[in-house]
Every structure is written in structure tokens, then in C-alpha cells.
């Protein structure tokens, strides 16, 4: 059976197409075949969170999915946050203001989880924020500024 497939994906509202072996992971396909390099690869076994994207509104580890499995789904990556004009999403703006990043490697993953969290739970408590963010590792910031960024983003999205 063919191990190579034509793969059609819908990412950030746009349609993309490529051809890859079935064994190619979603994150590799996004980066190498679709040129969407915003999503990073850290551990390739699901613990670091750098590869986190949204699939049908839920955060998933794109390193633990085969690209073929994402066909038919609505995907969102970090490239989908800012407007076409370059205007940052309020979540990105909050991370910028509160220094929620240094090297930025873990940041796309954190942003996508922050996005899902605040979409589904705009009044999330600090404990709930910590619970959601616990699936992401950051080597630079010590996490405090990330938490402050998420709190600020929450309050901005609530219109405060």
C-alpha cells in the first residue's frame, strides 16, 4: 500500500496541499512542506509542548500526529494569531508587554494553549491557568512572566 500520500490541509483558514510519506508527522509537514515554521519541535514525544497547535479548536501535539490524520480538520497555528496587517493578537500583545518570552522557542505552543484556554474559559482562575499551561516547558523565563502574560491577556479579552 502506498506509503506516500497527497495531503490537503486547512490551516489558519487557508487551503494547503502537499505530498508526503504517511510516516511524516504533522509538525514536520507544517514546517517543511507548508513553510509554516512558527511551530517548533522540542522533544518529539509529547512532553515539551513546543509543537502545540489547535485542531478543531482543541490544542494537540502536532509531533504526535501524522500529517495524514489532519486532513479534513480546521487547524490553527501561531501564524494564524496576528492579523494580515501584522497587528498582534491581544494574547501576543500581552506576552510582549509582560515579557512572557526570551528566546521564544516555547512561545508558539504557549500561545496556542493560552488561546484555547481563554476561548473556553475567559474567567479562568490562576490555578486553572497553571493547570492548562503545565503541558509546556520553558527554559528561559521561569514561568512567572508567562503567567502574568496570560492574566493580562485574559483581562484584555474580557474587555477590561
Amino acid at each position, binding site marked *: *500500500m502506498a*506509503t506516500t*500520500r497527497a495531503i490537503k490541509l486547512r490551516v489558519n483558514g487557508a487551503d494547503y496541499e502537499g505530498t508526503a*510519506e*504517511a*510516516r*511524516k*508527522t504533522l509538525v*514536520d509537514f507544517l514546517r517543511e512542506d507548508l513553510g509554516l515554521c512558527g511551530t517548533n519541535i522540542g522533544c*518529539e*514525544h*509529547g*512532553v515539551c*509542548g513546543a509543537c*502545540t497547535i489547535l*485542531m478543531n479548536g*482543541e*490544542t*494537540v*501535539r502536532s*509531533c*504526535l*500526529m*501524522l500529517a*495524514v*490524520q489532519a486532513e479534513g480538520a480546521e487547524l490553527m497555528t501561531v501564524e494564524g494569531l496576528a492579523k494580515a496587517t501584522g497587528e498582534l493578537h491581544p494574547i501576543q500583545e500581552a506576552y510582549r508587554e509582560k515579557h512572557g518570552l526570551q528566546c521564544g522557542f516555547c512561545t508558539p505552543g504557549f500561545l496556542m*494553549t493560552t488561546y*484555547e484556554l481563554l476561548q473556553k474559559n475567559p474567567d479562568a482562575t490562576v490555578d486553572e491557568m497553571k*493547570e*492548562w499551561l*503545565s*503541558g509546556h516547558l520553558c527554559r528561559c523565563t521561569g514561568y512567572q512572566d508567562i503567567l502574568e502574560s496570560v492574566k493580562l491577556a485574559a483581562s484584555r479579552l474580557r474587555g477590561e
Partner: protein
Amino acid sequence: MKPARFDYYDPRSLEEALELLQKHQADSKILAGGQSLMPLLNMRLARPKVIVDINRIDGLNSVKSWNGGISIGARVNQRALEREKQVAERLPILREAAQHIGHPQIRSRGTVCGSLAHADPAAELPALALALDAEFVATGPKGARTIPSDSFFVSYFTTSLEPNEILTEVRFPGSPKGMAWSFLEISRRHGDFALAGVVAGLAVDPGRRSITGARLVCFGVGPTPVRVKEAEEALIGQPAGEKSFHAAAEIVSRGVDPDNDVHASADYRRSVAGTLVRRALLQVWQKLGGK
């Protein structure tokens, strides 16, 4: 690393999937949520020649009432345990324990049945299935058979599923009358594999003094989840409280035979298992209204 080459199939029907397994047997692996298999593929710790992806199969994705409890299909993700009302109403311990399964990002893809079929000795769901007397529906080319929980988990990552069978459904019966449950695990970081964990169930007489039912299952302390019957029996008839819980904890510490590894020593695991048992029993006791 990246996965080694494999032939990939995404059948549209269960029959097709079963035909593939029948043809390829132990050379094939089922891919459901992928949260356990993909890490193995990525690191090339597993190199099946054939992958049978069941995500395009119609059905196998319902959460239904069953026997006072719930039945969960093969494709149902772990987030369902947190989301489904039936789980919250009938088996709230599953919802409570689900938070400890990896992280939300893992639970959006990881399946309940997949975790059970994978049988990681440090996983939460196998222990819960054993504690709650779940039934496993294994479907093969000749039809479905039901495997009771005490014969499903055989060893490290090994269940009694045949290579040509798919775990299509797991059924959790309703909790025994009057039994309340508690779940505790110890891990280095939230979401890590458990160093040791406990599922504890307790029922007491209406006067709320003597123990009429007990369930103690430990995980992370052996090749499969372990039901410590000796400790359960020691609790029956005893007055619920520190003394009897402590005695049960001692039996557990003596009775489990964990391994050493770089994360924790066998002695530590033995000790922690006992401590968790004591705390879990106290927690259930409080849920039942005791002090």
C-alpha cells in the same frame, strides 16, 4: 528522530481494519490517539511494518449508559471523561483521575481504550479499570469477546488481546452501592508518569462506623496495576479510621514489588504506595462523611 517506514492504512470500516490485522498480525499496530504509539514510533522503539489507523472508521466513538455505569468506544478521547455528563454523574472518580492523565493537549487526542490497550504500568486508566471491575470488549475476525479486568493486564505493555483483535469498547459498571472513591498519584511533575499511585474505594455501614467494602489498586509498582486483596480483606469489618487505614497501608507496602529506576528506587515506591493508600482511604472516608 523520525518514524521508520511503515505501510499506512486508514480503513473506513471495522471489518476492513480487522481484515488488515488478520493479514498482518503482530507486524501491525493500531493507531488511535497516537499519544502512546507516536512517541514509540518517533524514537523508533517500535517499528511495526503496518499501521492501521482507526480514526476514519464510522462509529466506535460513543459514550453510553451501561449497567448503571458507562461504556466507552475505541475512538473516544480522554477529554470525554472530563466533558461527558454521564461520567460526572455515574463515575465521578474517572473525571477526577482524568486530570492526572498527561496534559489537556494529550487528552484531546489520547483515547481511553488506547491507553488501556497500551497497558503502561504507570498509567492511570488501567488502574481505574481494574479497581472498577471494567469489562473489555475485544473484537476479532470471529466476533467480539468480553475480557474481565483481572485477566486483561498481563505484563509491561502486554494485555491478553490477540494480535488480530481490537479493543472496541470498555465498559465500566456502576460503582458498588455506597462505595466512594479516591485517586492519588505521585509524580515528579504534574502530568509525568506516576512513580506510584492508588485508586481506593470504601463503603461503610449506615452507622458510618464499620467498613463493608474496600478496593485498593496500586499502579507504578509492578508490571501491571496491582489489586492488593490482602489489604482490602484486612479492612472489612474494621472501624474506619487512622488505625485500620494505617494497617492496610502497611500491608500494601509489604505486598508490592516495584522496580528500581532512575526516577525512584523500589524502596521509595514501596513506601510511597503505602502512604498514598493511607491518604486515599482518609480522603474517601471524608467523602463518606467521616472525620
